[in-house]
């Protein structure tokens, strides 16, 4: 066995898993709290990526752009939920349709502002770590490290903070939460804002490695939905586990087999999980959800 290919596949798998996990975490948060499958999550990711690029052309550095994008996208998410999704709360299907409409709107905005071209953002980290003949670009490690930090922060937020407990309460039973005096709508807006920030964070991290173009979010979004099913909708830990399974198997599948074969394998895995474990890999009990 080629040891270098094996080790490189592990690294590549972790990077893929991190990208998928970031998208899936945002999806699962919105789904857990609002019962909405937000198709526009990919567009929020794309918007984050393009804003970083746009700021870089104005001389704003990557690390300065990062908090600007996160705060801006959180505000956008809060606004979208209060202005649009809150109005169709009782009919989740309408929320789904709104999210599809947002894809068209954001897509058109991106198209009109930045056009179809591909752009490079100056890499924030150019260091390459070499272990034997395995090379690990620092920017890829950044994606993995930030995803781990986000998972820890999200877990602490949901488990140990009062707003996090409130969000979990809303996710589990919004009527009971309201009876306990929790301002349900406000926490729904906050959940959507956090989800939007996670999506844009994904975009910010992606541009550290990949060029920006209108298709940047297509694959991560599709895989994010698969991860959502694999891990269990509404379970952050499940999202991360699902992303790991998908990312690592994809890297090894492409490295040792073929991409098209790996795609088939992923969908077979999805069917198997849906058949034998329809609640997902993690979501076996109520407590395991948000």
């Amino acid at each position: 066995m080629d040891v270098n290919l094996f080790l490189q596949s592990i690294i590549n798998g972790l990077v893929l898993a991190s990208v998928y996990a970031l998208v899936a975490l945002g999806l699962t948060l919105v789904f857990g709290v609002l019962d909405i499958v937000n198709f526009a999550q990919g567009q929020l990711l794309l918007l984050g990526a393009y804003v970083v690029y746009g700021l870089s052309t104005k001389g704003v550095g990557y690390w300065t752009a990062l908090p600007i994008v996160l705060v801006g996208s959180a505000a956008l998410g809060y606004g979208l939920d209060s202005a649009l999704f809150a109005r169709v709360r009782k009919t989740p299907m309408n929320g789904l349709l709104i999210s599809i409409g947002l894809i068209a709107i954001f897509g058109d905005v991106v198209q009109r502002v930045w056009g179809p071209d591909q752009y490079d953002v100056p890499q924030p980290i150019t260091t390459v770590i070499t272990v034997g003949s395995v090379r690990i670009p620092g920017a890829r490690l950044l994606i993995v490290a930030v995803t781990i930090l986000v998972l820890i922060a999200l877990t602490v937020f949901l488990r140990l903070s009062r707003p996090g407990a409130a969000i979990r309460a809303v996710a589990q039973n919004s009527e009971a939460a309201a009876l306990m005096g929790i301002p349900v709508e406000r926490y729904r807006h906050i959940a959507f804002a956090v989800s939007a920030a996670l999506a844009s964070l994904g975009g910010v991290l992606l541009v550290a490695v990949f060029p920006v173009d209108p298709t940047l979010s297509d694959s991560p979004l599709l895989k994010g939905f698969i991860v959502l099913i694999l891990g269990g909708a509404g379970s952050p830990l499940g999202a991360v586990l699902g992303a790991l399974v998908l990312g690592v198997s994809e890297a090894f599948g492409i490295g040792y087999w073929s991409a098209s074969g790996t795609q088939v394998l992923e969908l077979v895995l999805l069917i198997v999980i849906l058949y034998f474990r329809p609640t997902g890999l993690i979501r076996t009990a109520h407590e395991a959800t948000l």
Partner: protein
Amino acid sequence: MTNTLRQQRGARRATVFIALVGLLLAACGSGSKSASAPTSAPTSASTGASTVSCASPTSIPIGASVSETGGAADIGQVWAKGIQLAVDIANKNGIIVAGKCYNFSLSEQDDATSPEVAIGIYQKFLQNGDKYILGPGVGTVFTAAYASAKGDSVLIMTPTSIGSVTTGYNPLLFQTHITDAGTGGRVYAMAGALAAKYKPTSVALLESQDPLGELHEQGLTAGFKNANVPVVYAQYFPAGTTDFAPYIAAIKSKNPSLVIIGYLDTYVHPFLQQAVQAGFTSPVFVGAPGSTFASIQGITGISNYAVSITTRAVDNASDPQVAAFRAAWTAQFGSEPNSGDFWALSYFDDVLMLSKAMSVAGSIDPTAVATALHSTASESYPDRTLNLSFGSNNIAQYTPQMGYWLNGQITYVNLPLG
């Protein structure tokens, strides 16, 4: 857990599943970012001396379905400029047909690189009574739109490289690109040229997972086999791929001396970027037909890169055949054409040849004009950019070129066809 909760959970799972299926279907539908191919020849002005007044010309509607957004947007935007430039030149000169002056009335629609959108655009053109349609130029998009127009007496011009393969010969279909398929095709010839130029010990092929990518891979594999160069890696990547690191790791483990990636700049550029990051810079890298030198711009560490020019390099100031086009382009857009603007010729020459063919035919009837387009000897188009020859099924075609990049210096060479 109560029954109500279980039902809610079930409904939520069903919603997610339906959403996923919808997304998968959407991905399948919009999938391939294919490329397409080139076309015909430029010219500057002349439509023949005439004393006919063009003060109030009669309009000839022309519909154009161009991929200005979507997967092939980077090519489509250049196509759009080529069409507009040619229409402006033709209208400025006036189109003299049987003693009467005409001009083109262009209706350009963005097909978003989507077969479904292109079909809708075609139907709109047909309902408007348009007799001339340009595009789409992307093979997979063109095939669908073209099929929807069967039976209509409309002259269609496209630079797609797979149109003739999928549609067969139609006198009302004017293609100006040599096919990519078969041992007489461009891709096969490209493999031979690369083998002769770089003398690789082994080759890796990574193509987009769609009909054009498969066509490329078949042609390249056959071409390298004929040149006795082993292909040690041949795989496809799905449309929308941005992370090529797993592919690069697999290719690197095979240690090829030449790597071909297809076939759009939006794929090749990130691939090259990530190859440099992975320390994989020693092979000769080649962009499959569809990609340009824009792929390697801003990338340092790779010495040898090559692309196939589907029409004619228009950034080559020393080529007299493109001088008229370069002058017209610069006058219209304010800057000289760059290495990727050769795509503009795909339609630029078509439109100018169309205006000339109308004069030759003495009619604006599509059948008569098509006959003139297909049968007129090359001397009828003295001011076009390139000399066209006609293939076995009477399809006009350019002689393609290869562009070889060595540490920033580009050399263009005509590609000898079998």
